[in-house]
């Protein structure tokens, strides 16, 4: 009943790519639970400079991200509309790569060649 591991892992990666690359266009644009709370008490209006918050709310204390100038900021490539899917695919590949690297480094050696604990390479 078990699917071959490589095919299973490939399917898992494809699912992530389809979700980030395609399904992401269907995501709700409304603020999420946390943002809804931090915006509670404010009315939001769009201005040339960005979003204007009138009233009193937690989000008024928020400062712009240090990485706001990133070419992938706000899940768009170079700030272009309609590139959410591409940004998502890049994100999937980057997180998959980082995960693979970290967990390979942390992984104990294979059966029969187990290193004694305490004599292992660095964690980060």
């Amino acid at each position: 009943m078990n699917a071959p591991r490589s095919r299973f892992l490939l399917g898992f990666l494809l699912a992530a790519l389809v979700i980030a690359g395609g399904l992401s266009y269907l995501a709700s644009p409304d603020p999420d639970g946390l943002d809804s709370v931090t915006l509670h008490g404010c009315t939001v209006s769009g201005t040339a400079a960005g979003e204007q918050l009138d009233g009193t709310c937690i989000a008024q204390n928020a400062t712009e991200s240090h990485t706001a100038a990133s070419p992938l900021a706000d899940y768009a490539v170079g700030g272009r509309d309609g590139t959410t899917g591409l940004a998502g695919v890049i994100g999937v590949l980057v997180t998959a790569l980082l995960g693979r690297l970290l967990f390979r480094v942390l992984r104990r050696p294979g059966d029969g060649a187990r290193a004694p604990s305490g004599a292992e390479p660095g964690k980060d």
Partner: protein
Amino acid sequence: MVATYTAMHMSDGLVNAPTAAVFGLIAAVGLAICASRARADLDERTAPMAGLVTAFVFAVQMINFPILPGASGHLLGGALVAILVGPWVGSLCIAIVLVVQALLFADGGLTALGTNITNMALVGTFTGYAIAWALRRFAARSRTGLLVTAFVAALVGTVVAALAFVFEYAVGGAGGAGLETVFGLMVGLHVLVGIGEGIITAATVAAVAAVRPDLVYLLRGTRPALTLRTPGTGAAR
């Protein structure tokens, strides 16, 4: 006043600097412990799985689903990773997602990374795992048991992660809303988010269990074969 709020996670400035620093330290110590404990759970079968679980959580976090008119929610992923790859590895999966989101996608502030990691990677994951572990025999018994376990673990994990934000706001919030208001709204909204989280978590866990039940950490933990396969390591931790 101009603020960025389109991000999904805590921005910089919502809690004061000392609070952000303290939770940065808590997150760093927590992840170091997770990295040390994760070794016992990683082998040539589970390590590639953990990498892909990380990417999968990143992808699903992009999908905001409506919870109320004008409000949405998205997967946090703590219970999902805990059930699939265990809490130690799972916390690291979520932390990778949060770091990539903050650095590349300007989603969640850099100084807020400590609070975001504490809430979602540590509190959400370990709460979800505690619930799932308590129900593990029920989960191993039937497909329905696994679905219910995953749903409940994800729902509770989401609400408790939301409570962690309320705690941080109580400790060093920048102000703008009363604590009781923040508590009521966070819990109320995250019960709704948690229902979505529960559905996604249950569906994903069931899909993995249908084709590769051996890759579901929670189910392996219910079988003695796990300790037989790895004599002398991991089992005592």
